[in-house]
Structure formats: structure tokens, C-alpha cells
């Protein structure tokens, strides 16, 4: 399988398409998780938003990786709704801005991009690890990505580390009591439930891992 060294707009497009497939496959599971502590709309909202992002990519020409991410982000803000739309959409836009008008980028720049997304989510939500939010998966995944890069691993291995760290972060949300979001003022009822936002973040990192494998449908 081809290993992507230079990342371009095609890589971003694969990431978004893989994310849309992953979200679609897990839609009912995400909704089920959300029903326990939220509005029961996370799966449906995310699926609608990523389907809209894919439709937008199908219509418009590729352009630059940064501008594609910004366009996808804007679509998510408009079409996901709830808290997830502004959070994921703004994060994608921040990722796109971090690339500027570069045609291609490397794994170091991908780390910068992930950090920009994480920072935007934390700026909007003021959440830290342990608050039972997206951050519980996003932050450890970004840290694992950086550790992988520093050990000199190839991008697919680095992305696999990030995905695994995100999934660990998701499981760690189960016993937590939510300190942010609507679940926070529902108090103890959030204990014992896996956070839907952290779960969808892990799906996005799994999509990133698949996108780094070169061809979109790789295992």
C-alpha cells in the first residue's frame, strides 16, 4: 500500500470522506450514547453535517488543502447544529487557516494543524482533559501524534498511535462526571456513560489513520 509522504488536497479529501463513512457507520451508536446524557441527536447531526461536507466536495473543485478544510468547517458549522457543529466546524476552519495557501504539507505541519484544531475547541469550550468532552480524546491523540513523530515513525504508524490514544481517551470518559456542556448540569446522571463527543473525535482520528494509508478504503 502506498504511503503518503507529501500530503495534498487529495489527502484532506480522503480524510473527510473516511470521516463521513465512519460517522455514518456509527450514527446510531453515537445517538444512543447521546440519548443517555444529551439530546440524542449527536449521531444524526454529525451524519448530516459530514454528508453535506462530502456533497460540497463533490460539487466544488479541489482547490488548496487549507481552503478545502475551511470550506468543510463552514459546512459543518451550518449543518451539524448543537454544540458539535460550532466545535468541529470551527476546529476544521482553524486547521485550514493553519495551512495558509500551501499546496502540500508534511507530517510536522499536520501536527501543527491538529494543534490548531484542538486549541480552537478549547478556546470555545474552555474544557480540559477530565471534563468529559471532545478534548478527552482530541488532546491525548494530538500528544500521541507528536510522540510518534519524535520517535521518527512513518505517518501511518504515527496516525495509528493517535487513533489508539483517542480511543483510550474515550474509554476513560465512562466513569467521569461531566463538567462541561449540558450533561454538566444534569449532574451525576452522566456518570457511567461514554461521552458521545469524545467518541466522534475518535472516529475522526480513525479516519485520519485510514487517509494516511494512501487509498481511502484501506483496512
Amino acid at each position: 500500500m502506498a504511503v503518503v509522504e507529501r500530503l495534498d488536497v487529495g489527502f484532506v479529501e480522503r480524510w473527510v470522506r473516511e470521516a463521513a463513512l465512519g460517522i455514518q457507520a456509527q450514527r446510531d451508536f453515537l445517538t444512543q450514547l447521546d440519548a443517555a446524557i444529551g439530546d440524542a441527536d449527536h449521531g444524526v447531526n454529525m451524519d448530516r453535517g459530514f454528508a453535506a461536507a462530502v456533497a460540497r466536495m463533490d460539487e466544488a473543485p479541489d482547490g488548496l488543502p487549507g481552503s478545502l478544510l475551511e470550506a468543510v468547517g463552514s459546512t459543518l458549522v451550518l449543518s451539524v447544529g448543537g454544540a458539535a457543529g460550532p466545535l468541529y466546524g470551527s476546529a476544521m476552519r482553524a486547521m485550514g487557516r493553519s495551512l495558509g495557501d500551501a499546496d502540500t504539507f508534511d507530517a510536522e505541519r499536520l501536527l501543527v494543524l491538529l494543534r490548531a484544531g484542538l486549541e480552537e475547541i478549547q478556546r470555545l469550550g474552555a474544557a480540559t482533559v477530565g471534563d468529559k468532552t471532545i478534548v478527552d480524546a482530541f488532546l491525548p491523540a494530538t500528544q500521541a501524534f507528536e510522540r510518534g513523530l519524535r520517535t521518527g515513525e512513518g505517518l501511518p504508524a504515527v496516525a495509528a498511535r493517535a487513533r489508539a490514544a483517542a480511543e483510550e481517551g474515550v474509554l476513560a470518559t465512562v466513569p467521569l462526571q461531566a463538567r462541561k456542556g449540558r450533561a454538566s448540569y444534569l449532574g451525576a446522571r452522566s456518570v457511567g456513560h461514554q461521552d458521545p463527543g469524545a467518541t466522534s473525535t475518535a472516529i475522526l482520528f480513525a479516519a485520519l489513520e485510514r487517509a494516511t494509508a494512501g487509498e481511502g478504503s484501506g483496512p
Partner: protein
Amino acid sequence: MIQSVRRAGSILRELGSGPRPLGVTELAERLGLAKATVYGLLRSLEVEELVERDVETGRYRLGPTLLQLGNAYLDSHELRARSLLWADALATRTSEAVRVGVPNGPNVLIVHHVFRPDDSVQILEVGASIPWHVSALGKAIAAHDFEEVRDRLLEGPLPRLTGRTITDPEELRRALEEVHRAGVAVEDQEAVIGEAEVAAAILDHDGVPRGAIGVAGPVERLLPDGVARGDLVAAVKESARGLTRDLGGGRRYARIR
């Protein structure tokens, strides 16, 4: 103090701290009590239907009587009973969810919640306790409260729930002055990202805020371009004025608009 009553209270709080039923051994460990003591308390609580025992696992969870008591507690708020019709009408008129809250220390206790009148799945927020400064209901109440109450609220703690939560006491004080002047409070993603609320205070015959009523929903619908929609503000203020009149506070309300 009657020790067994206090211990029974601790048992109920432990059982209410999560969705999972608890066994006698686990409860005894958590409370630092002898198993026999916990067992005796649980049996008494079970007779009163304050807890129930799962036949298969032998574990205990909260009992159905608590729901009746919770409802009785809500009904004890005169404001809740009076707000039912006003809240329904406001939800129908605005096509958004409506919440009624009463002051409860540094929090707003949601005592009534009418779902947004569409067929989306929503979660009942009655019983939720929201920090006053992240809620339009709380800000509407605080803006009309006695100065010493307001000062105490502003002393905090003022936890941050989102990046937009106002946690600076002076900034909050200025915001409350504006709420008092405008007769309406607006919250813009200060509690939950993507959500906003527009609320107005309900005053009694002495002009003291007894609670607030407000419309809650997606920020893009409630605050297009970052400003509360005029028709929502008018509808919310009208409902608050109506409820204020019902509580005998009409003239006072006229004074603050």
C-alpha cells in the same frame, strides 16, 4: 440530630449519585458503616418505597416514592403552577423551548421546561441546577434582586462552562445593569456551545424576583447576527409581565418596564 435519619439521607444520595444499583457491601464501604446497619436502613427505606431492591441482583436503587416527592416539591413552588399556561403559550408563539427557573443559592433551579414544539428528541431539564451567571434566567433574576444578594452572587464562585462564560465580576455587574435597564437578559453560548437563551424576571408584589421565564435554543435562531431577535424579546417580556401580574406584582413591573 437523629443519626439514623442522617444515615438514611446519605444512602439516598449515594444511590442517586449514579445510574448503577448498589449492593449492601458497596454502600457500607462508601459510607464507612457496618453492613448490618446499612442493611437495616435499606429495609426500612424499602418499606417506605424510598428505595427498591432488584430481585435478581439484590442491589438497591432509588424508589418510586422519590419521584412523587420530587413532583410535590416542584408543585410547592407557586411560580411553577402559575407558569404552566404562560410557558406553553410562549413555546407555541416562538416555536422554541421554554424554561422557568427559580433562584436557589448561586444556581437557578429549573422548575418547568416546555419542549421546543417540533418532533426532535429533547431531554427534560426540570431539576437541573445551573450556575446563575451562565444562564439568562439567572442573570434576569440577579439583575432585579436586592443589592446585597447581587453582591454576594458576584463574589462567586463563577465557574467557567465555555469560552464565552463571563467570569469577571465587574463585567458581570455591568451586564446586570444593562439587563435591569433593558428588562431582558441574554445568554450567548455561556453555558453550552451553540445554545442561547433570552429571559426576563418574574417579580412578586414587593418587586422581589421570584424567578424568571425564558426561551432557549440554537444561537443562530435566537441571536441572528449576535443580537436577540426582537419578536423573541417582546414575547419573553410579555410572558414575564403576565406572570408578574399573576403574582400581584404588576405595578412594580411597570416601573422597571
